């Protein structure tokens, strides 16, 4: 047996050795092998080259797929419409003003004596109505029920028709008679099937309105607002709708016409209770608007809260 103490010797029958454990600094840079993070610069280079080529191929493939997809979709109309698309045939009802601070939810809270608070809400409405005011350069038509309606026509939404709900009047907020605007979500190609007669499940005031209106003017998606819960219902007796308690059907269908604006109904609450949070529910009425009042999947209606001090 050899006299040296055997350290560092290479034996023919040596056992396979586990990989040498590296210290942290060696892992970062090992001067012995010239490796940085376990690889020599050459090895890193090769690896980057390999994956660069691979990713370039992948990126090309990705963009080809995207281009192919974009070429199959039309710029003017969605590929899938109505039932085919998940947007469905049940347009949602929306209100304005709605706070941009998402934490505030759908609470409209103001003190009618504080102009700053009033200004916040009126500002929001102003913003929303800006499009409706600047009508220049748009090919629009003043529609009414007597005209024959062409699908491509864009009907004017006349902001002068909103009665007291005007910017000049601060939309009634400073008088404690706030206005909100109801709008129906735009769905490409959706046509309402209107109720031309009152149905028993409608609120009484709406039934009256329908019965009082002319037969040819009954081609409307009717709207009605009320307190959401039973106790709140009595608090909202005095509500007016401008220009009328419904959206005329000649605004439909929405076909992504240039300059198309959602028709609006201004709702004014004349004497909302002061100092308590009130839930208001507004509902749209048409045969093809299905209503579901449940909290998580609300259909055909919108709720919001008033808190007026």
């Amino acid at each position: 047996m050899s006299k040296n103490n055997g350290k560092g010797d290479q034996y023919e029958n040596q056992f396979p050795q586990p990989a040498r454990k590296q210290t942290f600094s060696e892992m970062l840079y090992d001067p012995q092998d010239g490796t940085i993070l376990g690889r020599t610069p050459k090895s890193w280079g090769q690896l980057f080259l390999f994956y660069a080529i691979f990713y370039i191929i992948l990126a090309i493939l990705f963009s080809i797929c995207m281009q192919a997809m974009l070429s199959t979709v039309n710029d003017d109309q969605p590929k899938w419409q109505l039932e085919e698309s998940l947007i469905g045939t049940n347009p949602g009802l929306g209100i304005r003003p709605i706070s941009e601070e998402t934490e505030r939810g759908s609470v409209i809270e103001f003190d009618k004596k504080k102009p700053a608070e009033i200004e916040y809400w009126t500002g929001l409405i102003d913003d929303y109505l800006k499009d409706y005011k600047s009508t220049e350069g748009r090919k629009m038509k003043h529609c009414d029920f007597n005209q024959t309606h062409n699908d491509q026509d864009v009907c004017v939404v006349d902001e002068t028709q909103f009665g007291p709900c005007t910017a000049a009047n601060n939309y009634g907020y400073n008088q404690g008679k706030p206005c909100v605007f109801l709008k129906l979500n735009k769905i490409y190609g959706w046509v309402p099937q209107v109720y031309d007669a009152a149905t028993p499940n409608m609120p009484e005031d709406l039934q009256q309105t329908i019965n009082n209106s002319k037969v040819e003017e009954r081609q409307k998606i009717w709207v009605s607002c009320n307190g959401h819960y039973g106790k709140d219902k009595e608090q909202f007796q005095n509500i007016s709708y401008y220009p009328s308690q419904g959206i005329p059907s000649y605004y439909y269908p929405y076909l992504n016409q240039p300059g198309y604006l959602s028709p609006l109904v201004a709702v004014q609450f004349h004497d909302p209770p002061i100092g308590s949070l009130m839930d208001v529910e507004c509902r749209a009425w048409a045969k093809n608007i299905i209503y579901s009042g449940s909290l998580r999947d609300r259909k055909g209606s919108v709720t919001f809260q008033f808190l007026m001090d």
Partner: protein
Amino acid sequence: MADKKLFMHTWPAEKICAKLKSDLTKGLTTPTARSRLAANGKNRFNFPVRPESKLRRYMKNCFHAFGLATILSSMSCLFLYNLDVEDDQKVVPEYCISGVVLLAAFLISGYLRYLQENNDHKVVGAFKDLMPMYCTVLRDGRKQIIRAEDVVLGDILMITYGERLAADVRIVYSNNLELNNVALTGISVPVVISLEVSHLDKWVARNVGFACSHVMKGHGMGIVIACGNDSEVGIMARLSMGPRPESRVRVHMKQVRLYTYIVGIIMLCGLFLTVSMKSKFEKMWIEFNVGVTVALVPLHLPVLVFFGLWRTKRKLLRMGCYVRNMEAASTLGKTTVICSSLIGTMTLKEWRVSEVYVDGELVSAEHVDKNDLSSSFEKLIQISVLCNDASISPGQRGVPKMLKTLYGSSFDKAVYKFGMGLISDIQQVRHSHELLTYQTYNNINQMHVTIHKKVHHNGSVKHLLLMRGHFSVVLNKCQTYIIDRQILPLDEIYRNNIKEEALNLVRAGRQCNVYAYKVLSQEELQLIAGLTFDFNMKNSEPFRKRLPEFSQSLHFLGLIAIYDPPLHNVNTAVEKCRSAGIKLVLFTRTDVNFSRAVAKTVGVIGTDHETIEDIALRLKIPQSQVKRSMITAAVIDMHNWHKKQHHQRWDTKQLLLTHPDVVFAEIAVEQRHMVVEVCQELGAVVTVIGSTVHDTSAIRQANIGVAEGASSEASQSCADIILVGSNFVTLVAAIEESRLLYENMKKAIAYSLSPLTAIILIHIAFVVLKIPFRLFLIVFLILDIFVSMIPALSLFYEPAEENLMRQKPKISDDYVLNKRLVFISFIQVGIIEASVVFIAYFVFMAYNGFLPRMLIGMGHAWYDDVNNDIVDSYGQEWTRFAREQLEYQVSTITLLTLIIMQTANLILIKTGRSCLLSHGFKNACLNIAVLYLVGFGILLAFLNIPKYLRISSVVCPSIFLYVLPSLILLIVLESARRYLLRLFPESWLERETYYG
């Protein structure tokens, strides 16, 4: 002092008594005993490590690895559910389900790890159970029954039949005492106690009774010379309690430890961040945080590991290899050294007659013709069955003659079996030669003598003395020999010839015995009859004592050699070990010549290898002149190594490093332990096969301890694996199986990790690109369990793609999650899968009206519950409800695309290098898994699933056209990679991308 104690049994009883202040007739006095008990402690094994409670071990395993991150995720989910309950009357159980699933994952992972962990507390139990509860001692001159743990040094122990000994005793009085050390050695051969001092080694000397051994017969008395931890069993127990080397699975777990810490920190930071933000989207961000954690934590990993181990365990059990410690099923494949016993594991342990020397010539047993036997041959056979202890064990009616099991020593049995083939009725022969008295074979006198009375047909009576024994002993007693019915004087030349022949046979691994006989003269007969009271078997002791007087001037008749044939296929197995880079180190208790011969027959010393003795013999030079460089194999007689421990270690190291295989003959207990330790010092992963309590320490020290089938309780309870058939071939097959497990484990992990990139990228895109694309937690759990985990299990059924026993042990590259695997599954296959997911998402959203440029930067507005009019690219306004529907379908589409990609991936991943078509599709489980994936996809697409699972049926086949190009890319790229790997082995590509 220690050395003195070691040889205390060689002292006369009086000296021991004096030393231990005891008295043979009165025993210890109670005060002395009490003070000794107080000084030395109780007579029981005190183990340094107290076994941990089950619950503690379970909890430890729960919080191992990703436990903390998982439990935090689970808690977050339950917190979210609680928020929901507070907020809302109508609660969806989504978070509750996720929370419970994560909690289950936490508990199950812990439980699986707990199950597969080696629970060695049983060893402690096994040793403790060996001790008796009570024993009888002599104290104050009276017999007293005391608890065994109160026995002290110097106590006089009364031993009677049926007991177990409570301590190591020097027997001072014996009446027919026989002890059985089966509990210690696993060998059920009783030791006849004699009072003479016969050997320095306690285990060979027959005047020592060991703690825990059974008293089979008789009664006696002994002085306690060692008790508790100092007793032989106690020393073994203590040696066996040392910490075990870590199993491979645990080592792998350690390798990812840093990563688990990082994940835990990310999880905690995320949790603090989201909770402190207090935004309206708090819930969403908590869910996001949990999502990120779950994406970073391979939840299914413990299940995969456990399943692989479990399956290998089952497979090994079918092969005759019971895996006690599941993690050993994985460690086994890493073996670089097998320390095995030569006899038993490599040979049949069933001795057969190989050669017969009669009439001056050596005849091979195979060539004996039953119908053409010379008279002396016949006589030899006759004598061999007469001078023989073997008999057919009762209760074997109807069993074919040659298959009957026999009682007796191995030599007797082999000869008896041989005789059965040549003599039609052995009982008849034995009957006609009535056995009068006998002396059984033992290692001291090395001969077996019987005296028979034979009555001839004519009524004349002849008394015969038959003898078999070691050639040197018997030949010296022979004066004549018989050849062709002639009696010739045995001269020195002929005697040497026979001795030479016998030595050659011994060198070839045979055990040979010489047979001789004589007809007793009348005087001799009368003397013997007088000594034994007319051949009363009970009074044979005086005859035995005066045996040498009668056994002179015998006729030499012949010689019978037996051998232990190697196991079927053992040569192939040894060959496999060699090609698999496994070194064989053999331990035997037998002598050098014999072990060398057996080592050669089983192939451990290959045909082209020579030991120093072989070379000396071949070149006819003394051993000292043999050049070192010529020696290629070593058979070492450890018995002669009377050197200091560190010298032994040094020599062993040199031997191991310079020889491919080493045989250690006549090895002692501590030497076994030492050899194993030295191997490990040299960086080896050692598998030790053992059977007795002696081996326990070596088995424990080894990385994988293997106990033979019928071995002692103690060695079985500390072994990782029990070889039911004690077959070396099985162990080699098991190693192959274990290597396959490692290969398949990597495949399964590579498969199950692939979708994680997509998940991680979705989370990144959600934050960086602010696109409304997120995977609900519950959807992710569905993906993790049903798409990643379950099909991955089928990969464990994959057959090997190349000969695993031709690879060297993967010691230097022992990483389950090696760099290549991570690269391939995360940034190659994973990226392709991620790109497909994004393509499918953008296409689906575009078809619904949201073009990609619209989606990027959408941000929070999408998730605002109040915002019911998100405008899409066509001016359509989407309510929250419609958007949610869209999200659910996106989840489904993400799942479906991942299922499609993973189906392809599953088929591709079957092979690491070889061609898929030539590898074949024989793995039925994997085929079922593919069908399962397809079925699961169809189910998702069409079934009406409860909404809280956040997925909804979706039918839009056109989207899947966009999946196709990437699918093809995946298939082409991965197939091409494998093709190139086959084409350019050991190239750059292999170094960087071959993880198998």
